[in-house]
């Protein structure tokens, strides 16, 4: 009899347990957790001048047109710099979901450039936790400007410079992302013996979304080499501006003290001084085409 009571009691418990359990809770208990990758840490493959951790997805072609005007402090005669224009064209393409390549041509020293960007780590939460995304950028640039001294022996290799960067970024929340970019620039030929062939610097950048489609971006590169003895007055590049996204385009409006739009130029050859008003207004336009 006692057993029978126990039996009924237990069956009641088991039945009540099941009817009370919420089906959604039960579902969550049985579902294997998935990996949630952080998406769109930055809107574009550039924060401002420098590369962001983002890359083009496979099969997508990015056509980029960038302008930097003259300095704002050049006055009304130069229409605050807008009479002069420096341009950089780029064609960039995602090959694999961890590899993109690009080529470009810029007015500054009539430079051709090419790069490859590799994604090494992807920030994720859920089943696999990874606090940061990491990409590596390798680029090479060749100037084609006329030799300053045509009389001496000039070699093509003297036109080349190389850049390697490790880009480490974290999307902190939906609207705020930060990035650190340790960078190494090697220049085969420099102007004088006071200018180092190897430049070390650390970049820091971030973006803050103001609305769903507009964000405020800023970027700074600190040069570790001493700048005091160089043959030219060199400053650390600082850029601030906005990303404006409209469907397949991203517009970047930018205020910067550097004229060059590739790493070798803005890291090592920025001559503008923010405090004196040597500020270039400019923009980057990115138009993405889906090729496959």
């Amino acid at each position, binding site marked *: 009899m006692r*057993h029978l009571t126990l039996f009924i009691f237990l069956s009641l418990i088991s*039945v009540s347990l099941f009817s009370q359990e919420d089906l*959604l809770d*039960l579902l969550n208990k049985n579902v294997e957790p998935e990996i*949630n990758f952080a*998406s769109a840490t930055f809107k574009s493959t550039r924060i401002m001048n420098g590369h962001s951790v983002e890359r083009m*997805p496979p099969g*997508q072609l990015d056509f980029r047109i960038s302008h930097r005007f003259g300095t704002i402090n050049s006055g009304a005669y130069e229409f605050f710099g807008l009479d002069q224009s420096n341009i950089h064209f780029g064609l960039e393409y995602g090959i694999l979901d961890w590899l993109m390549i690009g080529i470009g041509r810029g007015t500054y020293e009539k430079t051709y450039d090419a790069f490859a960007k590799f994604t090494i780590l992807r920030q994720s939460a859920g089943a696999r936790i990874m606090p940061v995304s990491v990409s590596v950028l390798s680029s090479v640039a060749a100037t084609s400007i006329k030799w300053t001294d045509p009389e001496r022996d000039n070699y093509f290799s003297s036109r080349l410079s190389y850049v390697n960067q490790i880009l480490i970024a974290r999307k902190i929340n939906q609207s705020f992302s930060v990035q650190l970019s340790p960078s190494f620039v090697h220049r085969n030929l420099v102007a004088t013996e006071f200018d180092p062939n190897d430049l070390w610097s650390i970049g820091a950048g971030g973006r803050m979304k103001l609305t769903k489609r507009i964000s405020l971006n800023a970027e700074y590169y600190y040069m570790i080499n001493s700048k005091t003895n160089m043959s030219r007055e060199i400053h650390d590049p600082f850029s601030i501006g906005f990303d404006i996204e409209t469907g397949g385009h991203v517009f970047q409006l930018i205020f910067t003290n550097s004229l060059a739009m590739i790493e070798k130029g803005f890291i090592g050859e920025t001559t503008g001084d923010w405090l004196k008003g040597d500020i270039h207004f400019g923009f980057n336009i990115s138009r993405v085409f*889906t090729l496959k």
Partner: protein
Amino acid sequence: MKRIIIVFTVSFLFLTASAQKFMTQTGNISFFSHTPIEDIKAYNNQVSSILDISTGEIVFQVNIKSFKFEKALMEEHFNENYMESEKYPRSTFKGKILNTESVDFTKTGKYDVKVEGDLEMHGVTNKVTVNGIIEVISGGINAASKFNIVPEDYKINIPGIVRDNIAKTLEVTITVKYTPLASK
């Protein structure tokens, strides 16, 4: 001995109770937007769902980031601008089959059902009623449904610049294949 019998009976009760539930983690959901300018399609094959045939209760859960689009940019905009998937990572449906009495879960065959419940998406919950088909097969249950949703009902704002590219009403298709849920 009697105790052992009790234990067995009780565990048997548990088992029968759980065999009333059917589950899947690999259900399909897709949606389709048609405008004269462009067609947008997205699919997701990681729908999880449980169907309790004893009560007719049915739940669905979808990870928003698992939707795949033809163009990577669309996927980014879907997550970043429209669904805000970092803030609202999941969409759930919790409902009930209204006409369970017309479905014989012991006999193979196709049955038309009407399901009513709460659909939560982008932080907004709406009551919806949809028609579906339940197909009882040996060793499992298949279910399918096709219905329309209006993004505006879920406070998903579509800005003027792309308003002509995205349809006012999206057609959603769900197909799932359930297997009995083993008790854990």
